[in-house]
C-alpha cells in the first residue's frame, strides 16, 4: 500500500478522535511519501491520549502544511521522496502499526547514511512558529538538593548567566507551602486542564490535588517496578535485541503497566506509562525520572505552572559492592543527586524556551533548605548576583 491509496476506511481500527483527525487531513496524508507518512500516523493514532496543548500543536503543523502553496509544500516533501524505502520495510502494516515500520526505517536510514538528511527535512517539514494566540506566561520552580549537605559553590553554574543569583533567599519550614501559593498566584483563571503540574522525585509535599497534576516517583513505584520486571523478563526469555524490547515496551497499555492501578485519569495513565517505557534510566534513578518527566511535561502538556522537586536517587553500586549482599539495597546518593539536578534545572529552562518566548518565562531554581537560588525572568538581570537577604515573596516581587 502507498500513501496515495489511503482512504478514510484505512483508519477504521484507530481510536475515535484519531480516526476523525485522519479523515479530516486525508488529503495531506495522501500527498506524503512513504518515508514520512507513517511518522504522521504514529502521532495521529495516539491522539486520543494526547494532552490538549500537544493536540493543538500537531493540528497547527498539519494545517500549516495544508495552507502552503503547492510548490512550497512540494519543496518540503521533496527530500523524503528521494528516500527509497526497501520492500521489506514497506511491507509492514505501516497504517495499523506505524511504530515497527519507523523503527526499521530509522535503522535503515542510519545504515545508508541518510539519517542526517532525513532529520533536517523533518525539522523543516514540522517547523511552525510559536502559537499565534497571545503568549502564556509560564512559571516554573525547580527545587534541588534534598538531604545533600556538602557545599556546592558551582551549583547553578549553567543557569547563572541567564538570570540573577540570590545568595540569601530565606528557606523556612513554610517555604513548600509558600511555593504552592506562589504558583497559584501566577495561575490564570482560564487555565485549561493539565496546565499546572507538580513533579516530585520522592514523597510529595502537601499540595492541592484539585489544582495540580501530580507525578510522584514514590507513588508511581508499582508502575516502574512492573516495567522493570518486564524488561528483566524479556532479557531472560531468550534471543532478542534492545530494539525489539523497546517495541515490546512501547506497546504496553496502562493496564499492563499497572498505571491504571495508581491513576484514574486515562491520559495520565498513558503519559506515565510512556515516561517509564520511553525514558532511559527513569525506571532506576529518581533524578532521571524527574528530569525526563519535566521535559516531556513541558513538551507535551506545555504547562503554565510547574513545580519540580528532585529527591535523592539510589546510589550506583560499584564493582566491589556487587560482591557484598549487604549492599544489595537501595542506598540514597544525595550529593550525586544534587549534581544530577543541577544540570536538569538548566535543561528545564531550555525546555521552557522551546515552547515560549523568553519574555514570558520565569524560572526559580533553589537549593532545598539553603539560601542559594537563581531566578531567570525578563526582570532578572542576567549574570548578576544579589547578596541581600530576601524572603520568597520579596524576591519574586523584585525579579519575577
Amino acid at each position: 500500500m502507498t500513501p496515495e491509496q489511503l482512504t478514510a476506511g484505512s483508519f477504521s481500527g484507530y481510536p475515535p478522535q484519531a480516526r476523525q483527525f485522519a479523515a479530516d487531513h486525508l488529503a495531506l496524508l495522501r500527498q506524503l511519501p512513504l518515508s514520512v507518512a507513517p511518522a504522521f500516523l504514529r502521532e495521529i493514532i495516539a491522539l486520543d491520549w494526547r494532552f490538549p496543548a500537544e493536540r493543538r500543536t500537531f493540528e497547527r503543523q498539519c494545517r500549516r502544511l495544508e495552507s502552503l502553496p503547492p510548490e512550497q509544500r512540494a519543496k518540503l516533501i521533496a527530500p523524503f521522496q528521494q528516500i527509497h524505502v526497501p520492500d521489506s520495510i514497506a511491507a509492514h502494516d505501516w497504517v495499523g502499526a506505524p511504530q515497527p515500520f519507523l523503527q526499521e526505517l530509522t535503522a535503515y536510514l542510519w545504515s545508508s547514511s541518510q539519517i542526517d538528511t532525513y532529520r533536517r527535512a523533518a525539522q523543516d517539514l514540522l517547523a511552525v512558529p510559536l502559537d499565534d494566540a497571545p503568549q502564556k506566561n509560564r512559571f516554573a520552580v525547580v527545587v534541588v538538593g534534598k538531604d545533600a549537605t556538602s557545599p556546592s559553590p558551582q551549583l547553578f553554574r549553567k543557569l547563572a548567566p541567564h538570570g540573577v543569583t540570590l545568595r540569601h533567599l530565606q528557606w523556612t519550614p513554610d517555604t513548600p507551602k509558600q511555593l504552592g501559593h506562589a504558583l497559584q498566584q501566577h495561575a490564570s483563571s482560564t487555565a485549561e486542564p493539565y496546565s499546572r503540574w507538580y513533579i516530585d522525585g520522592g514523597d510529595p509535599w502537601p499540595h492541592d490535588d484539585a489544582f495540580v497534576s501530580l507525578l510522584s516517583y514514590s507513588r508511581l513505584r508499582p508502575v516502574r517496578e512492573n516495567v522493570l520486571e518486564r524488561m528483566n523478563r524479556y532479557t531472560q526469555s531468550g534471543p532478542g535485541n534492545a530494539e525489539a524490547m523497546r517495541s515490546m515496551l512501547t506497546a504496553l497499555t496502562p493496564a499492563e503497566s499497572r498505571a491504571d492501578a495508581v491513576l484514574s485519569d486515562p491520559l495520565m495513565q498513558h503519559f506515565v506509562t510512556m515516561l517509564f517505557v520511553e525514558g532511559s534510566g527513569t525506571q532506576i534513578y529518581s533524578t532521571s525520572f524527574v528530569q525526563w518527566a519535566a521535559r516531556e511535561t513541558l513538551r507535551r502538556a506545555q504547562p503554565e505552572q510547574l513545580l519540580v522537586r528532585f529527591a535523592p536517587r539510589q546510589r550506583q553500586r560499584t564493582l566491589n559492592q556487587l560482591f557484598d549482599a549487604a549492599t544489595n539495597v537501595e542506598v540514597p546518593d544525595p550529593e550525586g543527586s544534587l549534581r544530577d539536578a543541577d544540570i536538569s534545572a538548566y535543561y528545564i529552562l531550555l525546555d521552557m524556551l522551546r515552547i515560549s518566548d523568553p519574555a514570558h518565562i520565569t524560572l526559580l531554581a533553589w537549593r532545598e533548605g539553603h539560601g542559594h537560588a537563581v531566578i531567570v525572568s525578563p526582570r532578572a538581570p542576567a549574570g548578576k548576583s544579589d547578596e541581600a537577604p530576601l524572603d520568597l515573596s520579596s524576591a519574586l516581587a523584585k525579579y519575577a
Partner: protein
Amino acid sequence: MDAFDHRCCELRSLTRREFLRLASGTVAASSVSSLVPSAFAAATQPKPRTVFVTFGGGARDEETFAPEGQQNIPRLLSDLIPQGTFFTQVVNRGILGHYVATAGIVTGCYETFDNFIAQPTGNPTVFEYFRRGLGRPMDDTWVIAPSNGFQQIGFSRHRGYEGQGAGVILPKQLLAAAVSRQHPQSLVDYEHLLQDNYEMPVYRPSLSENDGELHLEQLASTLRLSVEDFTRDARSLDSADALSLSIARRLMAQVSPSLLLITLHDMDVAHAGAFSLYIDAIQRADRICGDLWASIQSFPEYKDGTALFIMPDFGRDADGDPGGNGFQHHRTGGAMARTTWMLALGPGIRQNVTVDRAIQPIDLVPTIGKRHGFETPYVQGKPIPELIG
C-alpha cells in the same frame, strides 16, 4: 554532512584547540616542523607496539576540554597531551552505536550492521591485517572489552582472513565465571555485574556454562591467574573499566602483545540520565588513561617503543538540540554527537602539538598499518600523515 555541519565541526575543533592552548600551551602542527626527533629514526629500536583505547560512550567538550570541564581530565591535560599530538576534529560519519562504531574503528570502514546484535564485522579487522601481514601468532594481539556485545570483534567474516583474528577478553564475564566457580552459591549480584548496555539499562546477554568454561580457560592459560587471585584483585576495584585496566596490565606482563585494543565503557552510564555518574566515569577514564601510559612505560618490552592512541568512538548530543536530551544520548546525529578527538603519543609522534585538520576514526587502522608495516587493503580510511613520519 552538508556544509553547515562541516562548519559546525570546524568551529568545535577551533574552540577545542583554543581551550587546549590555554590549558596546556600546545602548538598548532602547521607552525612547527618538528618538536622532537622521530624515535622511529633512532638506530636501535624496540619492537614497535600499539595500544589503542576507545571510550565506548563519548564525552562532550563541556565535560572535558572546555574550561568548565577541564577539572574532570587532569591527567589528559597536564600529563598526556603535552607528550603527544592532539587531533581536535575527528568526525564519525557512520552509525553512532558503540559496537558498530568500534567495529568501524577496528576495520577502517564504516560498518552498517545492527548495533545491538553481536556479530563479526564484514571487513577484515586490524588484528587480521596485522597477523597476516607480519606473520604474528594469535597471542600477539588482544582486545579487552567490557561488553559481551564485543565478543566477536576480534575476527571478521572476511574469507581471506580466516583464523587470523585477535583474542577477546570480556572482563565482567570473566569475573562472573570466576566467582561462580569459586562460590557456586555466591551472593554476587550478577544482574548488575553483567549489565551490558546502558542504552537499555537491564539489557544483558546471558552467560552460558560453556561461556563460563571458556572464560576460566582464558584466565588460566592467558592471564596465568588463579580464580582466587583474580577475584581477590577484583574486589579492590570500583568499576568495570578499572577491571579492564587491571587485565591489560596483566596481559602486558604475561603475554606482551604487540597490538592491544582496550574499550572503556563506564561513561556510557550517561544513558541512564544521571549526570554525576557520567562525570565520575569521565574522571575515572582520565585516571585509567594516565595509569595505562605509566604502565606502558614501566614494562621494558613496551617502554619507548609503544604508541598509544586514545579516542572516544563519537560524541554525545548537544544540550540545545531538541531532538536529543543533552548529554544523555547520541541519537541526533548532530555535529556534537559526530565530532570527537584523538590523542596520539609514542615514538615518532610529535609532542605538544595540535592538529585541526579533520580526520575520521576509520583513518586509524591504515595509520597503524603504515607504522607497523602491514597492508590494509580493504580500508576506507586514509593514513594520518602526522603519525606516519
